């Protein structure tokens, strides 16, 4: 184990992939200088500027460029600098990367990884802060992962690069400097499996990316009152590990889904709908969703703090699931647990 910052874990995965597989190549704006946050710092020096390739500010075309290279057998890792700029590349991503395998009846495939950071952090405002995972999870052909910690960042990025399908690798800017233990050597986290970030018996909170930390903070607050929350880190949004989610809810009987994106139309709705259907018989309270209010991300840092869903809001939601359970005895009382 080595303690690494999330961003360094990402760089480490890129570095190792470039070393291990000659077909891996990196593309993106300013990446040979490390990019604005340093995720690719030094990689051009080691692996050469032809494999760590700076591009012009042409998001639509560099997405297509990466797809075209992937169709030809490369494993490009494209960096889109901010999630908000994915809006410029949706045609290539959705109409081409996601569909080329299907439209060709399996003749083509697109082993592409798109790294993109997002989220509200640092008061960057409405053009540099969105969380758009819900769009990507609605697109057949894509894979979507959103690590919450350094180890998963490395392991999922490694898996993404090795995947034969286009993977959207969602980084959170607010996690870049968070440290965590990362296993040494080849570290691969399989896509499609959630992780129990903290076990608990009274209620399940599902989160991903930065909200996992917020959920853990909420769990700490509730633990002080004797309420034991199970925090499930979804990690892989598409495919979603419904099995692990349902198993947790079967144990706890209560579910809160917490995401940083605006709640309406968010991926939390998909989780609520699918767990609601699959675990209906085990749910002892309505599913609660926590998400950002339905507004663009404001620039001012004070407003931004108000925008980002807080641990307190998760705490309240968990409390509602516990209060709102007709005919269910005191949570935490083993006698009444399933």
């Amino acid at each position, binding site marked *: 184990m080595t303690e690494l910052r999330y961003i360094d874990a990402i760089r480490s995965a890129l570095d190792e992939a470039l070393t291990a597989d000659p077909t891996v190549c990196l593309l993106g704006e300013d990446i040979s200088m490390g990019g604005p946050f340093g995720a690719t710092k030094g990689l051009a020096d080691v692996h050469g500027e032809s*494999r760590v390739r700076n591009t012009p500010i042409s998001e639509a075309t560099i997405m297509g460029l990466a797809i*075209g290279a992937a169709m*030809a057998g*490369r494993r490009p890792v494209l960096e889109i600098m901010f999630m908000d700029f994915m809006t410029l590349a949706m045609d290539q991503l959705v109409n081409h990367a996601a569909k080329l*395998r299907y439209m060709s009846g399996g*003749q083509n495939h697109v082993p592409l990884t798109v790294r993109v950071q997002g989220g509200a952090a640092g008061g960057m405002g409405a053009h540099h802060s969105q969380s758009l995972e819900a769009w990507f999870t609605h697109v057949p052909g894509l894979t979507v992962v959103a690590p919450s910690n350094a180890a998963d960042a490395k392991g999922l990025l490694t898996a993404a690069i090795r995947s034969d399908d286009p993977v959207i690798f969602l980084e959170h800017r607010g996690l870049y400097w968070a440290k965590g233990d990362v296993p040494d050597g080849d570290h691969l986290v399989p896509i499609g499996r959630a992780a129990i970030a903290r076990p608990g018996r009274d209620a399940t909170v599902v989160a991903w990316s930065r909200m996992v930390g917020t959920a853990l903070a909420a769990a700490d607050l509730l633990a002080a009152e004797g309420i034991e929350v199970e925090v499930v880190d979804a990690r892989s949004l598409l495919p979603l590990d419904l099995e692990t989610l349902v198993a947790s809810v079967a144990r706890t009987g209560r579910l809160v889904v917490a995401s940083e994106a605006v709640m309406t139309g968010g991926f939390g709705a998909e989780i609520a709908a699918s767990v609601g259907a699959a675990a209906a018989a085990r749910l002892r309270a309505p599913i609660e969703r926590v998400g950002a209010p339905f507004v663009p991300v404001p620039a001012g840092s004070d407003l931004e703090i108000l925008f980002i869903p807080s641990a307190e809001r998760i705490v309240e939601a968990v409390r509602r699931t516990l209060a709102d359970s007709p005919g269910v005895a005191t949570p935490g009382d083993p006698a009444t647990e399933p």
Partner: protein
Amino acid sequence: MTDGVHLPVADAIDADVGRALLERMWLIRAFEEKASELYAKGKIRGLLHLGIGQEGSAVGAISRLAPGDRVFGGHRAHAHALAKGADPVRLLAELAGRTTGYCGGKGGSMHIAAPEVGFATATGVVAGNLPLALGDAWAATLERSDRIAVAFFGDGAGQAGSFHETLNIASLWRLPMVFVCENNGYAEFTPLSAHTKVERLADYAGVYGMPASTVDGNDVFAVHAAMGEAVARARAGGGPTFVEALTYRLRGHYEGDPAKYRELSELADWKQKDPIARFATALAERRLVDDATGVALATQARARVDAAADEALTGPIPSVEDLLRDVVAAR
């Protein structure tokens, strides 16, 4: 009939090459006429964009490509796929939505893919293929291969952002790519002059210092010559070239379009410039392929396509299992 699916690659159009190209043009023409007939009968559905009248640029350009070169087409790409060597049976089966089609019926006319013969993909999104071809060309440099990428697109793509972004990167990185603009004067129902003040799309190349030429797209010899230079340059590491082929579609934008937006006299003029008839005449004048052979090639092409259609339409209709397949790699 010439053996093999690849067109012969040669610097000059001699008797053998001329015959092979003429034969392929007739095959394409017969294929598209058959597609039109099957569309009218409801055997092919969806949006069907025919390139009848534009065979010259497709065959003239692609006859310069090696088997390993990769072509990226658009919504009007039957000609390019067939020129690159696609099997008419599998292509017609694709148009008719059969499991025996190249894409198992999932792609249809607008999203042809036949990568085994170097037709990488088509796209239904105007200008969507340009960045893909760019990426393919970049991949070729990473592979240190001498293969090249070719994108075919219409005049309508010239006003799309990706076209410009692609030109820039191709020139900047000196990629082995050829831009073939088939300027047929219309995008859907709108003439080029209503979409841009730029008369020759090849002018854009100049800004980047990219070599470019505008040729008569209905003259196979002219396209063959321009494309020869372009391909040689790309293969030698000299970077991209822009070839604009002026042509005309003799049918509506898609089957069912009455094309009222253009003068009948204009259509009549262009019928006189039919690229197949012109090529046949030129070959005869040069004493490379005589008229009788030309006529025989046309007849053979029609027979071949009739047989292809019969075979294609025996292909199975896809099932629910087929519907659900090929979304992602088996996990």
